[in-house]
């Protein structure tokens, strides 16, 4: 008797291979992913430099998400499998196996699946670990290789975690088994189903929730608002999706059914009544697929946009290899610009990356309030009320600097300026009142300029320039090109009188050598803040602060973070896709069994094979492509939110984000169709 249970368990697994093989694959792949994430999170020989600290954090987030996903998904699959098998177990019971015996078979099944799945998963994980490490290192632009190692904690945690999940599943199955009697079990599946009722209230709630979610997505105007409202919008859309799939679909079908002229037509008759039951059974599953698809799409398109936009973001912030910014107050003494330039070039030369070009220019960033087309230091009007359209950081640079940076050769007369403005419309005259908060205080003298031309593009000037917030409609950005440095200093004087603040001088240094050498040079000189090691700048005049940012370092840092997001996004996206595939597959199979009988009866009553096929095809198409369509709609509305959220990472390239979303959706749709076609084959095999 002892050898019988494992044998029976093995046989029933093989007999139900159509259902259990995908389940096995799910255990295997989630265990593999789980182990890889754990191994990467705990990789001990990762360099502990600041710039790589993100990786383990990302992997820990990944472990958590994969864990949650695995629990939900394995529970879902298990309950589906057990429902399918109720009859078979009932038969065992009728044939004389006690519930204890059946429980023994179930325990053996879990043992077989668990051992092969989890151990196989960890082994697969080990095999893929090196590949994944290579991929992620490439993605985060990290060139040092590291050797393969076996993560024992990873193995132990994976085993315990999946063991616990499978054990919980088994306990649920045993409880279910204990509750049922054999006759009820045998009859399960053949009991008539009540026709679903139209749930108006739920359908309306769903419509309302979806509408609100979309409305939020359309109404939000700034990044921070997008961030704080994002989860509310997501929650509303998810709720709306579930309500509409379950109640909305049935309500619509019921309305169609009520219309007798429409309903009693060959095509509509079979399709509508079939769809009613199909939606009743599958609505939740389809909503799941839809949500999974949307999540995959949003995640992948967002992280891909972020990743591909990295270079652009870094370019705006640090256009040159070394971008140095000097803050000073002209009235406190003149800095020695040439001396600073020479000093930086000396440092570069001493580190083996001699400068090939240096360019310094004066500029002034002023925090101004836009009101009635004027840019003022004070947001309070004559009546004492605070009114303004926007608070803007306005950058002023001289014509020489602008021409040098942009490669143009514009000219300006005194009293003329060039303006680059995004998000806000300015009149033809630039008015700068320089008023003070307190009327008793001294204010600056008002200045005004004729705007010679509105510029379409503006060169990167480094630092947190108005360009970064330019695509944000609420904040916008304004840059002003004035005729010469004297005008620049005059404007600064007025600003300083009214408001205080400092003047800036920016130095771009172009270096020779490889990216890695430039990075090392920067590390060696500017990141060691101890007194004796930090570069000596004495004898370069009077100034407040001088600091240097490295493009190579910013790139490494950004790639590290965005690459981590990218890797996680794509990795989880693939996992979600796999889940969606599995749900589709199971749905196809269960639908197939349901439809087989109906198909046979209809044929006897005089329906042509062709017609049956056409009707079934139409239903299946609606059922499986509805989630994809709804996901596309969600993605469309989410796009605005995504663009705003990406601005939090200083990524403002809307075209790139749109391209990424479109390509992601395209690839996803192709994959989805492929999956559908493959699974549809097993469906038709069952039906005919």
């Amino acid at each position, binding site marked *: 008797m002892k050898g019988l249970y494992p044998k029976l368990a093995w046989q029933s697994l093989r007999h139900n291979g159509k259902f259990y093989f995908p389940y096995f694959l799910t255990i295997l792949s989630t265990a593999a992913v789980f182990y890889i994430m754990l191994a990467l999170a705990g990789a001990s020989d990762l360099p502990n430099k600041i710039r790589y600290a993100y990786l383990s954090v990302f992997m820990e987030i990944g472990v958590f998400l994969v864990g949650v996903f695995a629990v939900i998904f394995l529970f879902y699959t298990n309950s589906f499998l057990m429902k399918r098998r109720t009859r078979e177990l009932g038969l065992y019971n009728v044939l004389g196996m006690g519930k204890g015996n059946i429980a023994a078979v179930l325990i053996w099944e879990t043992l077989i699946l668990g051992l092969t799945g989890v151990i196989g998963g960890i082994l697969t994980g080990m095999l893929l670990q090196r590949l994944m490490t290579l991929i992620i290192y490439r993605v985060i632009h990290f060139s040092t290789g590291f050797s393969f190692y076996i993560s024992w904690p990873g193995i132990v945690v994976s085993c315990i975690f999946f063991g616990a999940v499978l054990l919980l599943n088994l306990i649920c199955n045993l409880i279910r088994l204990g509750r049922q009697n054999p006759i009820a079990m045998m009859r399960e599946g053949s*009991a*008539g*189903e*009540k*026709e679903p009722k139209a749930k108006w209230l739920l359908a309306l709630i769903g419509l309302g929730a979806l509408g609100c979610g979309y409305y939020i997505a359309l109404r939000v105007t700034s990044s921070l608002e997008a961030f704080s409202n994002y989860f509310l919008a997501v929650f509303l859309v998810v709720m709306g999706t579930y309500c509409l799939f379950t109640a909305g679909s049935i309500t619509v079908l019921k309305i169609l059914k009520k219309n*007798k*002229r429409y309903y*009693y*037509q*060959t095509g509509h*008759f079979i399709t509508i*009544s*079939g769809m*009613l*039951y199909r939606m009743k059974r599958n609505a939740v599953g389809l909503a799941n697929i839809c949500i999974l698809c949307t999540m995959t799409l949003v995640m992948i398109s967002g992280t891909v946009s972020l990743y591909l936009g990295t270079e652009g973001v870094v370019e705006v912030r640090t256009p040159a290899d070394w971008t140095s910014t000097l803050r000073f107050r002209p009235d406190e003494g003149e800095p020695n610009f040439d001396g600073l330039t020479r000093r930086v070039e000396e440092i570069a030369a001493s580190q083996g990356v001699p400068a090939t070009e240096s360019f310094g220019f004066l500029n002034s960033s002023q925090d101004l309030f836009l009101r009635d087309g004027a840019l003022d230091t004070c947001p309070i009007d004559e009546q004492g009320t605070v009114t303004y359209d926007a608070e803007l950081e306005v950058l002023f640079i001289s014509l020489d600097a602008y021409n040098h940076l942009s490669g143009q050769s514009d000219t300006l007369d005194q009293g003329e300026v060039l303006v680059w403005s995004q998000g806000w419309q300015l009149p033809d005259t630039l008015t700068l009142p320089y008023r003070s908060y307190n009327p008793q205080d001294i204010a600056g003298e008002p200045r005004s300029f004729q705007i010679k031309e509105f510029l379409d593009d503006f060169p990167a000037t480094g630092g947190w320039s108005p360009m970064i917030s330019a695509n944000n409609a609420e904040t916008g950005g304004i840059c002003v090109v004035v005729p010469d440095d004297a005008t620049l200093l005059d404007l600064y004087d007025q600003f300083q009188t009214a408001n205080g603040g400092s003047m800036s001088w920016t130095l771009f240094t172009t270096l020779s050598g490889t990216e890695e050498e430039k990075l090392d040079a920067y590390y060696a000189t500017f990141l060691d803040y101890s007194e004796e090691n930090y570069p000596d700048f004495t004898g370069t005049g009077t100034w407040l602060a001088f600091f240097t940012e490295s493009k190579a370092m910013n790139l490494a840092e950004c790639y590290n973070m965005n690459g981590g997001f990218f890797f996680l996004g794509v990795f989880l996206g693939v996992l979600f896709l796999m889940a969606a595939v599995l749900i589709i597959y199971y749905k196809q199979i269960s639908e197939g069994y349901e439809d087989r009988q*109906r198909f046979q*009866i*209809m*044929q*006897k*009553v*005089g*329906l*042509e*094979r*062709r*017609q049956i096929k056409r009707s079934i095809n139409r239903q299946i198409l609606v059922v499986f492509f509805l989630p994809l369509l709804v996901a596309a709609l969600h993605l469309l509305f989410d796009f605005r939110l995504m663009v705003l959220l990406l601005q939090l990472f200083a990524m403002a390239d809307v075209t790139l984000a749109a391209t990424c979303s479109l390509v992601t959706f395209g690839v996803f749709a192709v994959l989805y169709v492929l999956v559908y076609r493959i699974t549809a084959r097993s469906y038709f095999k069952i039906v005919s």
Partner: protein
Amino acid sequence: MSLLEVTNLKKIYTTRFGGNAVQALCDVNFSVEQGEYVAIMGESGSGKTTLLNILAALDQPTGGSVRLSGRNMAEIRERDLAAFRRENLGFVFQEFNLLDTFSIEDNIFLPLVLAGKQYPEMAGRLQKLASRLGISDILKKYPYEVSGGQKQRAAVARALITEPQILLADEPTGALDSKATDSLLELFETVNAMGQTILMVTHSVKAASHASRVLFIKDGEVFHQLYRSGSTQEFYGRITDALTVLTAGGEKA
């Protein structure tokens, strides 16, 4: 001319690899006249169901021919078969074969909807039929909400609503209790009295005794036939006798 003529009908089943050949029907000959009520009897495995499947054009004979109103069913093209079946034949099955996803009313409408009829016409036909079959009260219900007898009446309604030339019934009383059986057989007699031709396959003597003629099939051949005379009770006795001879393995009468 007879309504249904079956001549030299043969059916041989071969397994997939052509190994064993099983002869289900060897040489079946009979005809059914307009307005007749014929029962075909035989034991399990005698070829009854095969015969009915061929008559219903659900299966192709290996040899011989079936003519309905003089039209050879073998000559009907595959894609016209469904329409032919819909227009000329009505079916009643042992297990009712009602679709759970339709109400009783919609189940009855099914063949008409398939034929592309307009709703007012369908409703008109159903109204007449429903009161005759006593199912007016259950039209809005679903198959799983009504009794077996009611389900079978609904199935009969579905078969008759197309006004078929012949009603084919396969063990119609097989899944019914005795009370429902009596009422169904009564219904068949009424329908027959109104001119509907019925061909019923059964192994219930009681069901057969309501027919006007009984054909006995054994080993794929028509072995014997009895015409009704006298009361149902007397006919019942004669059928039982014939069956005794049949199962005792007697020679062809």
